């Protein structure tokens, strides 16, 4: 009996570290090797920083219109002053009447330099919705930025595209987050019930999911969105749109959760826990939930971009958020007609963050899924 088991000693520090590593640590170590996913994670974090500090990053009040400033192209930023010193500045705009067409044309006026100032005062807003402040990341030394600073140009109503983009990012990304939270709740609850109890309940839930998934989404959304009362406030429409989007979103998560529950029910360690006399609650929360948490996280990071796209699509079609609300879809709506695009191609710039964040979420989700489940 003595020759057994006290086998090959394996206790270098590194091995001990691996041996006592939790699944979370192992997942993190695997994830870390996935460069693209790691970079995407950083991009996603940056985007959510924009969500938190949208007003701070904005320059001009996003709703301030000025017909005189319509369709101003993105400004060139001059880094060096005429004396050669590093003093970033822009040229103020000077309106001139074109004598043949009588159109007012704005042209940079090199004699009127406006220097860029970091962390300066601008329009008033509430930071994190709590603190009154006027602090913005960027401004100019003379005059108001809404008259002179247009990093990404202006739209037809003369609103600063950069500032609107910041606030649109906040709306679109939070709608995704709220939508996913709702989907998650529904998905875990219904998927869990479905996978855990099986039988008739499972059949009913699965059929409902199939029916929901078989309805073409755009007509469904159109119908639902058209049913929204026209006199609702932006906030009400926002909530309603979130609900509409998560109506479809939860089905995918419910399938993931159900699938995991079904797979886990067959695992020996679950049977073992049952045979030890562990309660049902303990089996679910101590054994099953931790086993698929990582799958849920991966599923969420893949569901978020779908939500974002849904909102953008709806709003673009004029069925989702409506002005004065600002979202990516609303901004893209401005770029809908050929005339506007021909005159102001910079309005399409909104597509860049949309594409960036969708790609980032997809890469991140793939990386997380691979790291969480290297064999599946």
């Amino acid at each position: 009996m003595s020759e057994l088991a006290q086998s090959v000693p394996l206790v270098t520090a590194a091995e001990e570290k691996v041996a006592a590593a939790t699944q979370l640590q192992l997942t993190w170590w695997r994830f870390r090797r996935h460069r693209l996913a790691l970079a995407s994670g950083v991009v996603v974090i940056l985007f959510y920083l924009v969500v938190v500090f949208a007003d701070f990053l904005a320059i001009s009040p996003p709703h301030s219109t000025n017909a005189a400033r319509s369709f101003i192209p993105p400004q060139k930023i001059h880094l060096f002053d005429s004396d050669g010193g590093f003093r970033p500045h822009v040229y103020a705009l000077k309106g001139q009447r074109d004598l043949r067409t009588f159109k007012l044309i704005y042209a940079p006026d090199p004699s009127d330099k406006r220097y860029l100032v970091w962390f300066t005062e601008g329009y008033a807003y509430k930071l994190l919705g709590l603190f009154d402040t006027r602090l913005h990341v960027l401004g100019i030394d003379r005059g108001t930025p809404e008259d002179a600073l247009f990093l990404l140009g202006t739209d037809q109503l003369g609103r600063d595209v950069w500032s609107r983009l910041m606030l649109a990012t906040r709306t679109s990304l939070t709608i995704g987050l709220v939508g996913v939270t709702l989907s998650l709740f529904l998905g875990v609850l219904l998927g869990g019930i479905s996978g855990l109890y099986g039988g008739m309940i499972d059949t009913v839930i699965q059929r409902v999911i199939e029916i929901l998934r078989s309805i073409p989404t755009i007509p469904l959304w159109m119908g639902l969105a058209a049913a929204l009362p026209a006199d609702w406030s932006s906030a009400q429409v926002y909530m309603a749109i979130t609900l509409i989007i998560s109506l479809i979103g939860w089905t995918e998560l419910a399938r993931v959760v159900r699938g995991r529950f079904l797979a886990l029910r067959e695992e020996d360690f679950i049977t073992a826990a049952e045979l030890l006399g562990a309660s049902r609650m303990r089996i679910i929360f101590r054994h099953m939930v931790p086993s698929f948490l990582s799958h849920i996280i991966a599923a969420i990071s893949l569901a978020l971009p779908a939500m974002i796209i849904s909102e953008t699509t709806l709003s673009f079609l004029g069925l989702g958020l409506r002005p004065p609300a600002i979202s990516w879809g609303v901004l893209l709506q401005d770029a809908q007609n050929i005339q506007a695009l021909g005159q102001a191609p910079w309005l399409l710039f909104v597509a860049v963050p949309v594409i960036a964040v969708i790609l980032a979420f997809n890469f991140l989700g793939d990386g997380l899924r691979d790291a969480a489940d290297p064999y599946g």
Partner: protein
Amino acid sequence: MADPILSVRDLVTYFRPEEGVVRAVDGASFDLYPGGTLGIVGESGCGKSVTARSILRIVDRPGEVESGEILLRRDDGGIVDLAKIDPRRREMRAIRGGDIGYVFQEPMSSLSAFYTIGNQLMEAVRLHRAVTTKEARQRAVELLQLVGIPRPEQRVDAYSFELSGGLRQRVMIALALAAEPRILIADEPTTALDVTTQAQILDLIRRIQDERRLAVILITHDMGVIAEMADTVAVMYLGKVVESGPVDAIFHAPRHPYTQALLRSIPSVLAEPRSRLATIAGSIPHPYARPEGCPFHPRCARSIAGVCDRTVPVVTKLDERHEVRCVLYGRPAEAAE
């Protein structure tokens, strides 16, 4: 004795995933003679399956045959070194199936569920032989008959999922024999089967071998199957052939401490009821944590400190056919790599 039909010399196959190197096969040598059965036996991670896949040149990425010779004597007497052929070339494809047939452990995943077994057999026949569809079908029925499948004329139109595990493994053998190879590689052909079905399949392999002077490489972890089937045996441990020789010598005069310990530790129907077994201490190391020197030394009762943990023992010839890779039977040892 006749010339070997297949001669493997110092075969080295490594896997190089991101995490490091797995020396799956690290110097394996053996010979296979016409009509003979070579048993390759070992536990998990010993490299026996990778050896088979290396011979067929179907090692999955990131694995690669790094060095060594795999000399195949072809029908015309010419010798080709399979280790030097590009595995994707037509020549290699002709050898796979044509010269060397193979049967794997999992009959379910090796057969397509979309084609009837007849289609698959006919395809295998026509890959290597220019025959008409009708002739190919006739040949498929003959093959099913050969492997003892009842009512072959009807079964030829069946799908693999309609067959039991034992019948599926018979179909696999029929497929392997479709182009009349002279070598059959069977990798754990009976592991997934029940004991009475295993007996049927082993019986079948032996019968076909006798009928066609087929040379068989039988890969298994089961010492009982080896004792039953093999003429010569190669015992592998962590990528190295530690001992090879005639089956009687391996079972009745084993020399390598691993072979000796393994034979003492296996449960047997011949043992006294409720008798304790001798054990080998410890367990098989993780592929990344392969011991220095002789791979078996940490578990070896006769390991010599300062020798076995430092140097890789060389192969010592005990007699014409019995070879062992252990410092107890000869020196000098080559220096550790």
